[in-house]
């Protein structure tokens, strides 16, 4: 848990405060993303938490302990820290980089080795291949992974991340974000995350703190930021394509349609006839492990042919998506493959349901109506 109480930072030379009277509470196990234009004080705020920058005023509590009353080095040992340019130690191997904090804490050699190997696996780098490499032998994405592994090495309950995925290309960034969210799901760390990218904020944050000129403008969930921005600044910062960003935020399971009839591949043709009589058309075909095989359009078949040996008429879906994809991913696939229905499958291929274009549309407009800003978006 991180709590900032009336925190301010003044610099002698500059007029005004870099951060003024900031109050922020990051709940245990949640990600708080601080976002804002450059110079808004977000990085300064982050660095005050581990006292890289000393606050001029106010109190900061990490897990209910005032950071100003602790030795800064001991404090930092308990807080994972990832910075934009990663700052891997160039003269240390990947292994030594990851082992830095455990070594400082005086862990036993074997414990350090196990932990470092475990972490490298968690961030998706094989220890055999990468442990002995030096940072200059790694790609940007791999460096970021090592940076994250180093920050998590001593299993700190709190992590500070300053644009941790800023220095890599968009594809790698997306991949790193997804992997990090997966890790976070298991680890449940309390995280303060700084970015200037509102899309990243929406994707990563349980809560978003929008900052401007050293002040906190709005601190809320991504949904509320998107649907009810507090003032014009937030609205502008979030962008006019808020409706599309909402799609990025929502997972496919929010509007998953599970009502379509499912049949197993060895179903008797009588069952199909009954379904056809009930007026069902689109039927999903699964194998005996509930994995997706394809679909059949009953009406067409019943019109022209008999249902004996119906498995001949099974058609494949041109595309499927994972259950943890966003609605935006679903939309993109729909546009790409020119379809209106896309089946959702779990990680191991089990069928979960269907997302439908019209359902996405109506869901979004409903959300906007309840927040009374639909006319603004249209305008």
């Amino acid at each position, binding site marked *: 848990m991180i709590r900032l109480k009336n925190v301010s930072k003044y610099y002698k030379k500059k007029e005004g405060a870099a951060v003024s009277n900031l109050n922020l509470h990051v709940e245990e196990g949640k990600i708080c993303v601080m976002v804002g234009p450059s110079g808004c004080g977000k990085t300064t705020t982050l660095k005050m938490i581990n006292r890289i920058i000393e606050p001029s005023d106010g109190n900061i509590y990490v897990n209910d302990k005032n950071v100003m009353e602790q030795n800064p*080095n001991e404090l930092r040992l308990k807080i994972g820290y990832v910075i934009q340019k990663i*700052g891997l130690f*160039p003269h240390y191997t990947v292994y030594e980089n990851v082992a830095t904090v455990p070594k400082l804490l005086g862990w036993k050699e074997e414990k350090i080795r196990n932990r470092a190997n475990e972490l490298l696996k968690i961030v998706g780098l094989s220890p055999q291949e990468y442990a002995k490499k030096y940072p*200059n032998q790694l790609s940007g994405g791999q460096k970021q992974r090592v940076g994250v592994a180093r920050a998590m090495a001593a299993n700190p309950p709190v992590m500070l991340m300053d644009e941790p995925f800023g220095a890599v290309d968009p594809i790698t960034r997306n991949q790193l974000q997804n992997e990090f969210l997966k890790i976070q799901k298991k680890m449940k760390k309390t995280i303060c995350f700084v970015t200037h990218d509102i899309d990243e904020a929406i994707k990563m944050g349980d809560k978003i703190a929008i900052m401007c000129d050293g002040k906190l403008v709005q601190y809320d969930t991504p949904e509320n930021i998107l649907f009810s921005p507090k003032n014009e600044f937030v609205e502008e910062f979030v962008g006019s394509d808020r409706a599309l960003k909402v799609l990025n935020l929502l997972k496919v399971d929010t509007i998953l349609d599970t009502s379509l009839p499912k049949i197993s591949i060895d179903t008797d043709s009588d069952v199909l006839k009954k379904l056809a009589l009930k007026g069902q058309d689109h039927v999903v075909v699964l194998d005996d492990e509930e994995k997706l095989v394809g679909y059949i359009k009953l009406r067409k078949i019943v019109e022209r042919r008999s249902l004996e040996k119906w498995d001949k008429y099974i058609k494949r879906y041109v595309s499927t998506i994972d259950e943890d994809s966003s609605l935006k991913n679903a939309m993109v696939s729909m546009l790409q493959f020119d379809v209106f229905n896309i089946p959702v499958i779990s990680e191991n291929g089990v069928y979960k349901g269907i997302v439908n274009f019209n359902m996405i549309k109506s869901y979004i407009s409903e959300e906007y109506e309840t927040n009374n800003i639909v006319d603004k978006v249209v305008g």
Partner: protein
Amino acid sequence: METISIFDILTKEAPEHILQHLKLVLISLNIAILIAVPTGVLLTRKSFKKYSSKVIAVLNTAQGVPSLAIVAIFLNILGIGIVPSIVALTLYGLLPIAQNTVAGINNINYEVIEAAKGVGMSDKQVLYKIELPLALPIIIAGIQTSSVLIVGTAAIAELIGAGGLGRMIFLGITHFLPKYTLVGALLCAVMAIIFDQFFRILNIKLTRNYKQT
């Protein structure tokens, strides 16, 4: 005397002078390292940082004084003999090492230092685990420059009684024995090259694993 061959000079007389020269160089170089590296480190610490450009400027000016003058100055202060020679040589070798120590530490990417502090290293740990190892190649380059300077200046230090290869050179000049001068000068050059190459190779060996990017 006129008939003595270069071979004889090399085998019979030179070894003694080479050893004396080497002794001068190694003692002064080591003292220079012991003074210059800590001074350089001190000049990069927060509280002294503001003086660093001034101190380096003073040292720079001192380096501009010809080696002959340095030797002459110490003749006045400390008299003749090996001790004043070593003091003069040490002073002459200080600047490149101190300058490179400062440059080496200040050139480390700030984010590496910030990361080191951020993971919880104390100032001392940052210095020993991060700053010094990363500055080492540049510090060694400074020692390399310094060693070559000292080898050359040590020959002149014979003027205040240092001995070494300078003795052969000046003997040749004062007694019209060009062979002595030639052998002394060549050996001096060879020694400078050997020092230079030694530190160059040492640097490559120490840093072959990583590059600072």
